[in-house]
């Protein structure tokens, strides 16, 4: 048959039709991979790619995200009067955070926002680099240490009019509680003079929990996080946007970062109460003790920290457990 003949020919094709084999007497050098921080992601911001990404985002990612994680979105009014790019600084508990956050952004931001993604995790392979650059407009960021190239790239793109999603914790929370913020978002805000919008994402760890590190997996606990790590599960979420913040005169990046973290903590309190109660808890007149760091959880053994973690928002629970 002609088809099988062609397949046979393809299978038996030899150099130069097929790729050359490597002489066993020659040491194979490490392939020169342009991944990680060296990955050239400029293509992902060209117009045809942006158009394709917008089509996928609006017609595939967004409906799927709504179905998988019905969101309660608060605070979008803070974005209405913003002119130009901003830095969205959010807590981080799950890989699903990025698409969920992007799909809840107003359309004027949604297709003009890049995502700072860990270069060692999302850009360590060419296929991953291509995938995340295309689907999320991600750019590689060095998270383990200060890197001028990362900072320069992000700052240049902010100055070009791209908003930036960054997770100042530097990685997903290991237990659901928020980790201390690093200074990257605050530094970029000071450098580019663009505002930071604090964002609190609630419940995303129930949608796609973090897979525990090898060796920390609980032994066979049915229904425990360890047994369902890395698997998607339908669960409602809440996305809360805070008021844009800019560094005060003379305020350094470290102090500004603390303020951004506190703003996210305040948003976290809104999930169970309301804006007014949350504001009162951090009021300058009558602060609630420990309110600014409440989002980090109690200083207690692991099981108590896990116990104290909040539940999904009530509206979604109603949908999940109808009367």
């Amino acid at each position: 048959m002609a088809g099988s003949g062609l397949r046979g020919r393809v299978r038996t094709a030899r150099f130069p039709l097929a790729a050359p084999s490597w002489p066993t007497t020659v040491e194979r050098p490490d392939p020169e991979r342009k991944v990680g921080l060296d990955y050239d992601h400029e293509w992902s911001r060209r117009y045809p790619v942006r158009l394709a990404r917008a089509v996928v985002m609006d017609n595939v990612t967004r409906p799927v995200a709504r179905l998988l994680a019905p969101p309660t979105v608060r605070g979008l009014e803070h974005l209405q009067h913003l002119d130009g790019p901003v830095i969205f600084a959010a807590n981080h508990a799950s890989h699903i955070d990025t698409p969920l956050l992007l799909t809840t952004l107003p359309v004027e931001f949604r297709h003009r926002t890049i995502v700072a993604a860990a270069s060692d995790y999302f850009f360590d392979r060419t296929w991953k680099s291509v995938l995340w650059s295309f689907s999320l407009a991600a750019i590689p960021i060095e998270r383990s240490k200060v890197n001028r190239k990362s900072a320069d790239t992000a700052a240049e793109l902010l100055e070009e009019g791209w908003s930036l999603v960054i997770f100042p914790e530097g990685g997903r929370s290991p237990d659901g509680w928020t980790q201390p913020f690093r200074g990257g978002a605050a530094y970029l805000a000071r450098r580019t003079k663009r505002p930071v919008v604090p964002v609190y994402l609630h419940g995303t760890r129930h949608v796609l929990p973090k897979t525990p590190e090898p060796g920390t997996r609980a032994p066979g606990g049915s229904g425990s996080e360890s047994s369902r790590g890395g698997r998607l599960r339908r669960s409602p979420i809440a996305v809360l946007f805070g008021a844009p913040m800019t560094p005060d005169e003379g305020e350094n990046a470290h102090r500004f970062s603390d303020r951004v973290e506190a703003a996210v903590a305040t948003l976290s309190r809104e999930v169970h109460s309301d804006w007014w109660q949350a504001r009162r808890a951090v009021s300058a007149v009558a602060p609630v003790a420990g309110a600014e760091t409440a989002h980090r959880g109690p200083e207690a053994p692991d099981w108590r920290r896990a116990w104290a973690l909040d539940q999904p928002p009530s509206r979604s629970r109603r949908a999940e457990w109808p009367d």
Partner: protein
Amino acid sequence: MSRRPGFVLEVDKSTPPTLFWNGEGFTLETLPEGSRVIYAPEPMKALEDPYGAIRHALLHPVGDRDPLPALLRPGMKLTICFDDISLPLPQMEAPDIRQMVIETVLDMAAEAGVDDVVLVAALALHRRMTEPELRHALGDRVYDAFAPHGLLTQHDAEDPDNLIYLGQTDQGEDVEINKRAATSDLLVYVNINLVSMDGGHKSVATGLASYRSLRHHHNPQTMRHSRSFMDQPSSELHSSNWRLGRLIAESGVTVFQIETTLNNDTFPSNFAFLQKREWEWSLRDRATYGATSTALAKVPPRLSRQIFHSIRSPHALASVQAGEVEAVHALTTANVWAQQGVDVEGQTDILTMGLPYICPYNVNSIMNPILVACLGLGYFFNMYRGKPLVREGGVVIMRHPTRPEFHPGHHPSYIDFYEQVLTQTVDPTEMHKEFEESFATDPWYVHLYRTGHAYHGVHPFYMWYWCAHALAHVGRVIVVGGDAKAVRRLGFSPASSLNDALEIASDVVGPSPTLTHLHNPPILMADVH
């Protein structure tokens, strides 16, 4: 990434087929397991500011020479000589190195108020360059300033009015060179050093010499005792040129030698696969190879020749040094070896090589069978230091179409040499005795050399003499894919495929010979231990 040095591959089951030049084309051959393939070092980094480097070299000469500006003065007679079309190969992308160097020299001469300046192409017995070739080598600015006034000349080894006899060396070698150059207050020689045999005293002693002078070292005896041409201490050709050069210096000719070396980035990006190791060929390389080899197989040789000769090499300036001839040339030689040298352990029974479409004597011309022999046995065979790559009594296998085609304008005496001499003898010594004189003094060849664009009548003999060392050393020469009649005329054995050639070779070297392939391009020099 730092550049990788030269490399000797041992062929195994996983080794992809190896590239062989095949005239105006190329092919892939599967070499027997255990064969060796010698790859050249990767190109050296080009000098970032070539004009700056040239200027620096002229201002900081080596050896017993003052900086060039100090040697220039009003009222002096300055002659600038330069290497001809035979270098570099292929012709380099503009601007040519000669243009860059000569422009810098002329800037200094103009600044010093030198009025009497003449440029001389150091042709020796090569063909005269055409106007486009001169314009390419020198640039329009230089050409238009000198050629219309008759101040851009080409050395004429048969012009008795412009030759001067300087004397005889202690070995009885006559020294007769270009009169204008020899009687100038300063002779600036601008060289391009492609291989370690080039340059040094050979620039003036050969490039500006007459037949009377050249015959003392361009003969079978000298060539056979140059082992190799590239290994200066072991080269009788080198020794002879040094004797001549020193006599020229003693005669009062002040030479300011400017030598340049190139990196071995030989072919432009669309032919990049030619100089890559086959197992590192990318998809693009394979596609380019497939497309070009298929297309070249379908077009007539005349067209493929035009395509190849239109290629301009991205060669870049790797070093420039100036000053006294011998001091300069010591640096130049070291730089050439740094670019081209490859360490090779031991000799081989069979040496294989693919021969390209070009050699120093057929730029913009046809590679005739005599030049095929010269390129393979005169040049590639001699690309060694220490010992020849192939053992004494071994076999050389060359791949080239070897068509009996000649350029009648460039190589008229080659046609008669092929028909009248090679039919009688292929022994360099015998043809030297029997035929050389008549070809060298034939008035028609002399006329064509002086007024047309023909190589001198004696030139095909010299090409054959270049092969003398190899012919005396090897047991058999086999040409794969060559025109059988032409190959036999050269005294070689024709073979239709590499396997056939290996079969033929087994008669000489036995059934289990060792084989080494000289991978080209780029050119390399083997340091055989």
